[in-house]
């Protein structure tokens, strides 16, 4: 665990010393700040639309940060050959993978905290209303979602050599899961066998990332999700994280590094 934490520390250090990360980070924070301050004609609907746009922006930015950060971890280590002096030390490949995951996930979490803090402060100051638990639940589930995404992208990074192809494929697959996965069972009902069974199998196999999109909890201030459901959603997400990290380890553990 110590080794994984040390590797995670390096991942976080690299991230906050990279300029491109700051550009995205500051841009999102600024847009969130400006849009979150709007209260046009005291119309509640408009305020909600703006809130929705801000949260969508936060979702997109965090997704881009998670994918681009995780996609380059292992390929960059191999390309810049920093992996050689590192693996010449008493660290296992499993610890390296877990450290990389931990670093990316914590970094994403830190970015999320700042994004939500900006957004929450601005909209709370305008509305004089502080639904802190709603924010906490939305942020928590968003973070679990990014954990699944990070683990998935790390798996892609040991399969695909090029960072760009991994990032693009991961983005398409995750977007596909977010928008299509929830409808697969309905489509399956209209199909004949064996297509129906195959589609059902896919429906149950893919991680249902849409569970984690609870922006409405903030936008419409819906009642809090039951803590038991929140716990189950966390376990569901963690199960996929473990599955993807295990797959990454299986592929990477005996890979020859030249």
């Amino acid at each position, binding site marked *: 665990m110590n080794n994984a934490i040390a590797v995670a520390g390096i991942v976080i*250090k690299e991230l906050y010393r990279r300029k491109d990360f700051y550009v995205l980070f500051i841009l999102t924070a600024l847009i969130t700040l400006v849009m979150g301050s709007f209260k046009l004609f005291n119309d509640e609907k408009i305020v909600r639309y703006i809130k929705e746009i801000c949260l969508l922006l936060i979702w997109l930015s965090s997704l881009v940060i998670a994918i681009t950060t995780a996609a380059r971890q292992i390929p960059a280590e191999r390309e810049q050959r920093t992996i050689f*002096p590192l693996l010449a030390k008493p660290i296992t490949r499993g610890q390296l993978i877990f450290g990389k995951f931990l670093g990316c996930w914590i970094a994403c979490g830190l970015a999320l905290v700042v994004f939500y803090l900006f957004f929450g402060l601005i909209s709370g100051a305008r509305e004089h209303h502080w639904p802190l638990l709603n924010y906490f639940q939305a942020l928590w589930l968003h973070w679990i979602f990014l954990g699944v995404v990070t683990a998935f992208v790390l798996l892609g990074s040991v399969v695909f050599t090029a960072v760009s192809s991994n990032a693009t494929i991961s983005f398409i697959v995750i977007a596909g899961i977010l928008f299509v996965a929830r409808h697969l069972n309905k489509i399956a009902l209209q199909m004949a066998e064996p297509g129906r069974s195959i589609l059902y199998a896919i429906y149950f196999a893919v991680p249902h990332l849409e569970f984690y999109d609870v922006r409405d909890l903030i936008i419409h201030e819906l009642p809090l999700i039951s803590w038991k459901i929140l716990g189950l959603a966390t376990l569901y997400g963690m199960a996929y994280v473990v599955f993807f990290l295990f797959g990454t380890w299986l592929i990477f553990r005996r890979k*020859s590094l030249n």
Partner: protein
Amino acid sequence: MSTILEIKNLRVEYRSREVGQGVKIAVDGLNLNVQAGEVFGFLGPNGAGKTTTMNVLLGFVNATSGSAWIFGADVRQPIARQRIGYLPELTYYYKFLNTEELLRFYAKIFRIPRSQREARINAALKLVELESARKRLIKTYSKGMQQRVGLAQALINNPDLLILDEPTSGLDPIGRMKVREIIQRLKNEGKTVFFSSHELGEVETVCDRVAILNQGRLKVEGRVHDLVEKYQCNLEQIFLKIIGYEAQA
């Protein structure tokens, strides 16, 4: 003397990426022993299999057959690397870190206790004369300085065995001299050094024993002094003879 490094019937094959090329044998039936406290020169022309052998020893590449042990542990086990220092041929370090941060990171990987960590970092930096540049990002260093960072990280755990892959490659004469001095100092401290080099004069000066590899096979192994006596010429001429090089008139 105890055996620190042992290689038995090592064979490494690569599947060629070119169509119809089949399998390329990088190392073929290599047997080698390195004893505690000796400086061992691992020689051979480019493509002889030196780096591949080192990569097997460090767990980067899997052997097709045969086995290797370091301090009695299978090289595939991370514990085998606990008492090793490794210097790669070129400088491959995190350029966004400064030397102090890099050494601290590696010290954590070696589980050097927090109380000893700073002292070890200071000692390593002093040895490679990088104390004044410890806070500068590695990307701002010259090549020679980066090579010294490499040496510092290889020494951070006070290793009993140092594996150096062409440690003087690309260095100026002063840099080479410094590396040689460090190897000599480590030898005097009773450390074992296993290194590959193309600088045969340097090898002759610092090594106790050498092995010459060609096309993946071990051609000669023995004490430098014995080889020079046997062949009645210097190490460079022995090397050229063994690899079958004939000077063009």
